[in-house]
Every structure is written in structure tokens, then in C-alpha cells.
């Protein structure tokens, strides 16, 4: 144990004292918001500077009158369609919308002709414009007038209230929970990937520099492996802790400068823009939404989430870290390692995609349950569900299995590791690994 501690200390100090660690630790919290800010800025600029796309409407039905808006300008064209197409090619117009003589109750055959493949966003917007127009026309045909129509339109938002057995109500905000699950899951994914690789590279380095035989004449291979895995975990946690501190200091500082003034400014602008009482109501609603969101975030069992997150953060890392150590011990260089790292990472990758596809959208489904129970996928899947308050028995079962999984992978890894680190230049495949696993030392 004493020697594991020595190795732990050495691994930790070596990495923490490196310049690259210092740079990464300080720069990444600065770079991420910076990249985000630049992207938002570019997007906004694009929106501002974008001219409305001109769309030629070739309306054979003569019924569809489309209104221009900020993003689209509709120009009526007629005549021979071939001529129209030819003329269109010489303009910088975005497309031709060809509306055949349609039956309003069965509008089929509407086409858009463009020079390039239209983006999903544009297609959706144009479809929406045409759809709204057609449905307006249908309503008018049914003798419903516009004013009545507007008064019929309703805007509501449903807020979610969870009721538990004792009848306590907790209000939650599904949007916030989605973002929370997404961010936490991504953190785990990145952490395991980055630091798992560090373990593997460290082992490969010891093997290629041939220092390993000197070391294992003083310590047992298992102590060396464990010391390394834990030492690198400590590096990761340290880095993570510094990031959290830096980000919270930075973001509260940024909020102090921008966050407070921005909504007010926006509100002022909006107020001056449209001074009818209806839109003021709208603003109030929006502000309420933000306040509600912040409030519901604060209502989350933050301490519980943080604790469980840390558990899966470490558990997932240890589970995969041991396997990465085994891979590092088996190969002579990084290229060789690739054939083994991919199958190891596969369940992890699947759970990462699962996070978006079904875990966050339906956190209590059967698939979400199994993903958050199986140790290889639970670190991401369960963390994605944490905000949605998974049943306690599932949490406990998942965590027990994760610990068991960690012992299991460590046991397998150590059996491969003790042989692998002494083998040089041998061609390694799964059969060889199995042989090493069975071998007695």
C-alpha cells in the first residue's frame, strides 16, 4: 500500500508540474466560453447582414398570396415555366416555388426549384409559410373571419409538477434537466476518454523506455498499475476542481458585467419598438420564464446530483481506466493500441449517443433503465437521468454494479498487465491476450 502511494504521488506530481497541465487548466475554461461567444457572434452577424431570400412564386392556382417577412421576399412570376427557369438562373434569387392548381383540402405537388440543396431550416420555414397560408384560406372559405381566428390562437406553457408518495410537489423544468443531463454526461465522456488515454500512454511509455522491469523488481505490477490509475484520477479531479472554480468565478464576473445589464437593455429596446400592451405582456412572460428556470434549477437536489455525479465520474473512469492500462501493457506503440481501444470504447460511445436519442428524451423508459444499470454504460446514462430523479433503488443497484464492474475490469486488466509489460515485440491479438490472462506468473 505504501508503494502504491509512492507511485500515486509520483504520477500526480509529474503531471501536475508539467507546463502543459498548467496551460490546459487555465486556458480551457477561457477558451470554451470564447469559442461559444465567437460562434454566437458570427451567427448574429450573419442573421443581421442576411438579405431576405427572394423566392419566385409560380402560382398556377392563383390562390396563394404569400406575404414577405424578414427572411423571405416573394415575387410572382408567370408565363412559360421553362422561360421562368431560364430567367431565374440569371438572377440571384433563391428559388422558384411552383404551386400547381391545387385543391385546398388536398394540396399536393408543390415544388421548390433551387440552385443549391436547400437547408433544412429554409425548407421548414417555407413549408410553414405556405402551410399557414393554405390553412388561413381554408378557414376563410369556411367563413371564419381573421379577427376571430386571432382570438382563437392560444399560447400556453405547461409547467411540470412532480408528486411523490408523501404528496410533496416539486416543480421541475424539463428543459433545464435536459441541459443538465447533457452537460454532465459530456463531462464524463470527455474525462474518461482523455484521462483513460493518459493511463494508456503512460503505460506504453514505461514499456518502451524499458523502465518497467526496474520498477517491478521493487513493486508488484498491480501496485504499479493501481498507483498510476489513481494518480491520474487525482490529476483529473484537480484539473476539474480548478475548472469549476475558474468557470464559476469567470461566469459570475461576466454576469456581473453583462448579465445584469443585458436583459434590461433588451427589454427597453423591445418596449420602445412596440409599445402596445400586448407585447409588454409577452416580455413579462418571457422574464417570468427565465426566473422560473433559475428557480427550478435551484430547487433541484443539487447536493445529491453533485455527489452522484462525482461517484459516476470516478467509477466510470476507474472501470475504463483499468482496461486502458491493460491495452497499454499489451502493445508496443500507440498505433497498435487502436485495434483494442475501439472495442473498449464502443459501449461508452453507444451510451453517449443513447443519451441524446432516448435517455434525455425519455429518462424513465426501459432502455434508459437498462443503460443506467449496466456498469459499462451507466456512468453516462445514469448521470443523464440524475436530474429527472431516478428511483433510489435504481441508483443503488447501478452504483453497486458499477463498483463490482470496476473490480471485475481491474482484475482482468491486472492479469493481462503483469504479463504484457514484460513482453516486447510480440504480435498481440485477442487470443494472445486470453493466453496471458490464463497464464500463471
Amino acid at each position, binding site marked *: 500500500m505504501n508503494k502504491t502511494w509512492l507511485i500515486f504521488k*509520483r504520477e500526480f506530481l509529474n503531471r501536475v508540474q508539467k507546463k502543459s497541465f498548467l496551460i490546459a487548466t487555465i486556458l480551457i475554461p477561457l477558451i470554451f466560453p470564447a469559442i461559444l461567444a465567437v460562434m454566437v457572434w458570427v451567427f448574429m452577424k450573419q442573421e443581421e447582414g442576411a438579405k431576405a431570400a427572394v423566392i419566385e412564386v409560380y402560382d398556377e392556382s392563383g390562390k396563394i398570396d404569400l406575404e414577405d417577412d424578414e427572411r423571405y421576399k416573394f415575387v410572382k412570376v408567370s408565363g412559360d415555366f421553362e422561360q421562368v427557369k431560364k430567367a431565374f438562373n440569371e438572377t440571384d434569387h433563391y428559388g422558384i416555388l411552383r404551386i400547381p392548381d391545387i385543391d385546398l383540402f388536398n394540396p399536393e405537388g408543390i415544388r421548390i426549384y433551387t440552385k443549391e440543396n436547400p437547408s433544412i431550416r429554409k425548407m421548414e420555414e417555407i413549408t410553414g409559410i405556405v402551410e399557414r397560408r393554405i390553412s388561413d384560406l381554408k378557414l376563410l372559405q369556411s367563413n371564419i373571419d381573421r379577427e376571430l381566428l386571432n382570438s382563437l390562437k392560444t399560447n400556453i406553457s405547461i409547467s411540470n409538477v412532480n408528486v411523490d408518495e408523501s404528496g410533496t410537489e416539486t416543480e421541475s423544468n424539463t428543459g433545464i434537466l435536459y441541459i443538465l443531463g447533457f452537460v454532465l454526461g459530456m463531462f464524463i465522456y470527455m474525462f474518461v476518454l482523455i484521462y483513460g488515454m493518459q493511463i494508456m500512454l503512460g503505460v506504453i511509455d514505461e514499456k518502451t*523506455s*524499458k523502465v518497467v*522491469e*526496474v520498477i517491478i*523488481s*521493487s513493486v508488484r505490477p498491480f501496485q504499479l498499475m493501481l498507483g498510476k490509475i489513481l494518480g491520474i484520477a487525482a490529476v483529473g479531479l484537480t484539473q476539474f476542481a480548478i475548472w469549476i472554480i475558474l468557470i464559476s468565478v469567470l461566469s459570475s464576473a461576466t454576469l456581473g458585467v453583462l448579465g445584469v445589464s443585458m436583459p434590461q437593455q433588451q427589454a427597453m429596446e423591445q418596449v420602445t419598438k412596440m409599445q402596445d400592451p400586448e407585447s409588454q405582456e409577452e416580455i413579462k412572460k418571457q422574464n417570468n420564464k427565465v426566473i422560473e428556470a433559475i428557480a427550478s434549477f435551484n430547487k433541484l437536489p443539487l447536493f445529491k446530483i453533485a455527489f452522484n455525479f462525482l461517484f459516476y465520474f470516478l467509477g466510470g473512469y476507474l472501470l475504463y481506466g483499468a482496461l486502458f492500462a491493460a491495452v497499454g501493457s499489451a502493445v508496443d506503440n500507440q498505433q497498435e493500441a487502436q485495434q483494442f481501444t475501439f472495442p473498449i470504447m464502443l459501449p461508452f460511445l453507444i451510451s453517449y449517443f443513447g443519451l441524446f436519442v432516448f435517455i434525455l428524451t425519455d429518462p424513465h423508459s426501459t432502455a434508459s433503465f437498462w443503460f443506467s444499470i449496466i456498469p459499462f454504460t451507466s456512468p453516462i446514462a445514469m448521470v443523464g437521468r440524475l436530474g429527472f430523479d431516478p428511483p433510489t433503488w435504481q441508483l443503488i443497484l447501478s452504483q453497486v454494479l458499477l463498483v463490482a464492474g470496476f473490480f471485475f475490469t481491474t482484475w482482468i486488466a491486472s492479469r493481462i498487465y503483469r504479463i504484457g509489460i514484460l513482453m516486447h515485440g510480440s504480435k498481440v491479438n485477442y487470443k494472445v491476450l486470453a493466453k496471458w490472462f490464463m*497464464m*500463471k506468473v
Partner: protein
Amino acid sequence: MEALLARNVTKRYTNHIALNDVSVTIPQKTIYGLLGPNGAGKTTLIRIINQIINADAGEITIFGEPLSQKHIGTIGYLPEERGLYKKLKVGEQLTYFAELKGLDRKTALEKSKSWIRKFDLADWWNKKVEDLSKGMAQKVQFISTVMHEPKLIILDEPFSGFDPVNAQMITREILELKEKGSTIIFSTHRMETVEDLCDHIALINKSTKILEGSKKQVKDQFRSNTYIVEHRGVFNVRDDRFEITERKTLDENFYRSILKTNGDANPNQLIRDLTDVTEVHTFIEKLPTMNEIFIQLVKGETHE
């Protein structure tokens, strides 16, 4: 009490036997040569002594006690496949290795510093290993092997890659360590170093020990009753007690002849016989070199 005693050690792998019932006796305060061709099983035996791998059968005692984890600090091991952490500073590296051998941090630091001064590397204490020349790195490696003052030092091919100057320095150091009471196991297939340094040897070939003893015993065992004589004037063999196997002209009327007796004749008798027929300038017994013994035994085994 022996420094190390291995009794009937056997190690099997799936497809071959690495060590087959090998016993060695290594007396204290000697330099013990563990010889054998590549793949004979030397490294396997050394790894078993270092507890890197376990024997399937047999037992090992070290200074009278059964070998166990607590003896890690008793042994200093320089493997054939050796290296250092390239990114680590020399001082940190030495201290770390000493700590792994069981020294506390303070002692480890003191020892590292005194050894590094002894090897003229004090200026490099804070330099990374990757900035060192190959020779300097080897010195650091050697220091890391002996700095915790192990009673048993195991050197696997210690001179491979050393330049002659460093090799000489290491040789001096090895002899000094022996003087101070350490026992040194020396694994090599370079016979000239065996000839110079070893007191005892064991020869392992094809997983089996085929020879063991002090250098003198071994050489006696392989005496071939051959003598080198330098003499003035030609002579011819008169009787069947000896024969001339080789004659070389060294100068005008000055020759070197190699004589082989039939085993009964003692050297004094031979000299008497020779002085009758020629003017003897030099007379020495031609003892087999370790190299010759090695080749003779290993080849003999191979040709079986």
C-alpha cells in the same frame, strides 16, 4: 551461510520449459557468473530471484531466509532491458527509485546526492534524463541499482552499451562493492569479463544447469594437459609421453611449440625431458579459457 540458494527450481510455460530443476549455490562476497547462451533461462532465473515471476517448483533462500517480499530492498537489480523515465529529473528519479526500494525520503535524498557526487554528475541533478548523454544515463542507471546498498546485486549484461571508459569505471565499482561485502550475480555471455571478474560460475544451457563451481575448480576440470613452450633450437619427439600439436617460428631459430602429454606425465618431468633436447625459455601450462569451456560445453550439448 550462502548469499543465495536455489533448490530444484522449475518454470514451465505453455510450450516450453524455461528452467528445468535448476539448483545454484551462490557464496557470500563473491562475484558469481551466470553464463549461458541466449534463451538458456538465465533471465528467467533472475526474474524469479527478483520475484517478478514465480517458480512452479523449487525453493529459494536468501541469506538463510526463504525469499519473500521483504527482501526487495536486499536486492539491487540491473535488468538487461533497462531504462529510466526520460522526462524525470535525475535527482527525482534516483530518490524515487530508492524510495521504491524501501528507503525513507530523507535517506533516499542523502544517498542519491552522495552517489551522484561520486560519479561526477552533481551538475546534472536538476536535468531531465533525456538531456543526458548515453554514458551519463547509464551511470544514473547503475547508481539506481546499488544506491540502497543491497547485499545482493544482480547485473544482467551490465556492460552492454557501455563505452570502454564507463565499463572500466563500473568494473572498479563492482570490485569495490564486493570488497564492502556485497554478493554480485553477473549474467553475461561475454567471456572476457567472466575471466576478469568472476570467482564462481554456473553455466545454464537449454534450461538446465550443466556446470557450477569456483573458477579454479572449473578450469581444473577442463585441464587438457597442454603446455606452451618457447625454445631455441628445433627438437623432435622421442617418446610417446607427449606430442607436438603445433609449432610456430617466432624469430630466427626461436620457436613456440604446443605440447600435449598423455596425462601421466607431470610438468616437472616434461621440463626435464625438454631441457635435454632444447634451450627452454618459457614453459607454461595452457589452461582452457572460459570461452573455450563455454563453447565446448554448449556445442557438445547441441551436437548430441
